[in-house]
């Protein structure tokens, strides 16, 4: 938090300094007068308005809204379709509040269900996987209810979804948590009536470095081959032959395969273009959400009383 605050102060100060420098490099006398004028007058921000007015897309948008980036597979690209999809996504986001969440966050999703009592069902669970992009973006929630593991796959832009609450916003050490299926049940057990935990505004999303304890073999997947960081006791259950075969399928060169990475990502320039297109609307939605949150937090104690 502290660091963040400092950053904000610095970022406020930096443009001023740059403006200062820019004037100096060009300056003879009239410029100096300008300088004095800027220093003397208290309305400093006016000087920087042209820079401030430009839509600057925050760098973290690609993590918060990854589904706005198209599929990097060139054969499947279609710029018109992508654009239309983005419009549809924004329209859907105007109807329902889809908050920021990551793999490892604990969510509660309320969706309409014709067979449930009251026509709605609410499911609480940990997000173990996020995949696909555009309107097809989806995620899997996992929980253990009555000693029985449950997983529900939700499409993010499904019109039957009524509400998505983030009960605990955090990340885990791995990109997908399918190994929770083979872990002891207490690692994927979450209380259905859990209260939403409040995270301070502007703070970085915490990374939960909990190490999961696996059940003994047989497993659903060969976890020893996947270089998992969030598993504690994988060594306990594997033998030498597993170790050998795991070593065989390792691909240590992939982190140097630049073109493979390039083909799996959307280049920065393109990302900027895409987010510049949707930035204003996403930003207004965010502001709206903050306002609503404040209202709700104000109302709650009244109801209790």
């Amino acid at each position: 938090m502290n660091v963040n605050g400092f950053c904000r102060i610095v970022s406020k100060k930096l443009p001023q300094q740059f403006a200062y420098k820019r004037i100096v490099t060009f300056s003879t006398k009239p410029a100096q007068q300008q300088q004095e004028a800027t220093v003397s007058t208290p309305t400093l921000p006016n000087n920087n308005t042209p820079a401030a007015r430009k839509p600057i897309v925050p760098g973290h948008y690609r993590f918060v809204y990854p589904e706005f980036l198209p599929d990097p597979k060139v054969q499947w690209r279609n710029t018109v379709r992508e654009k239309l999809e983005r419009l549809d996504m924004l329209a859907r986001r105007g109807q329902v509040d889809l908050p920021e969440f990551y793999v490892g966050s604990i969510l509660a999703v309320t969706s309409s269900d014709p067979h449930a009592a009251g026509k709605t069902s609410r499911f609480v669970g940990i997000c173990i996987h996020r995949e696909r992009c555009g309107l097809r973006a989806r995620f899997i929630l996992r929980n253990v209810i009555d000693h029985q593991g449950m997983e529900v796959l939700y499409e993010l832009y499904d019109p039957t979804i009524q509400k998505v609450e983030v009960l605990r916003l955090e990340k885990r050490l791995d990109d997908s948590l399918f190994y929770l299926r083979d872990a002891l049940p207490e690692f994927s057990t979450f209380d259905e009536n859990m209260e939403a935990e409040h995270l301070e505004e502007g703070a970085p999303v915490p990374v939960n470095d909990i190490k999961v304890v696996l059940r003994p073999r047989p497993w659903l997947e060969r976890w020893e081959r996947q270089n998992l960081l969030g598993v504690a006791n994988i060594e306990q259950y594997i033998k030498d032959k597993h170790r050998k075969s795991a070593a065989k399928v390792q691909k240590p060169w992939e982190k140097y395969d630049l073109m493979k990475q390039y083909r799996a990502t959307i280049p920065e320039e393109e990302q900027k273009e895409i987010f510049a297109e949707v930035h204003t609307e996403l930003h207004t939605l965010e502001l709206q959400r903050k306002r609503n949150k404040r209202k709700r937090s104000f109302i709650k104690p009244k109801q209790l009383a």
Partner: protein
Amino acid sequence: MNQADVSKLISQLRIVVRPKNRNLKNPDGPEGRLLKLRKTVTALVKHERIELYYNRADEARGYAELLISNAIRHGDRHKPTMELADYWLLEKQLVHKLFKVLVPRYDNYNVSYTRMYKAPRDYPGMYYKKSVLELRGNPYPTLCADQTQNRNLLHNVLLDEARKEFRREKVADLANKLNVATEAPKKTVEESSDTIKPTAI
């Protein structure tokens, strides 16, 4: 519909990228393929212009471009970039060249850092297509002479003459106008003096 990888941020390449990579036939699989390409990239950075088979050049080109663009983006204080340079440049003195020569050279470029030409192949000989791969701004003489500036080419001669004629006409026009303008006031003055005279009398 896969999600794009967001963990890394890469600048856009200014070359045409094939949707799929070429495997470059190799008994050692992808690792051997990368070794081949490392040799090519090293040679490219070292010699700045190399002649080789088209497929391998086209594959290596993307890696060379990305290596340079990463070096420009992160500089030599960035550990992963340094590791990349260490992996891709087999001769370690070239790491210095990358950061101290190529990065300043390409800092303000808005075109690709490399250039590729199709080269003629020997006949009779191997069927494979050949090509020349080079870094831009290399010290060698250019491979394709720029003909567009040659004033003696037919269309340039024609355009030059057309321009000259246009200017000549413009000048003649101006001269005519000036003549008319200078003659006209004289007349008016004369007329006016004529008109004034009787009143004076």
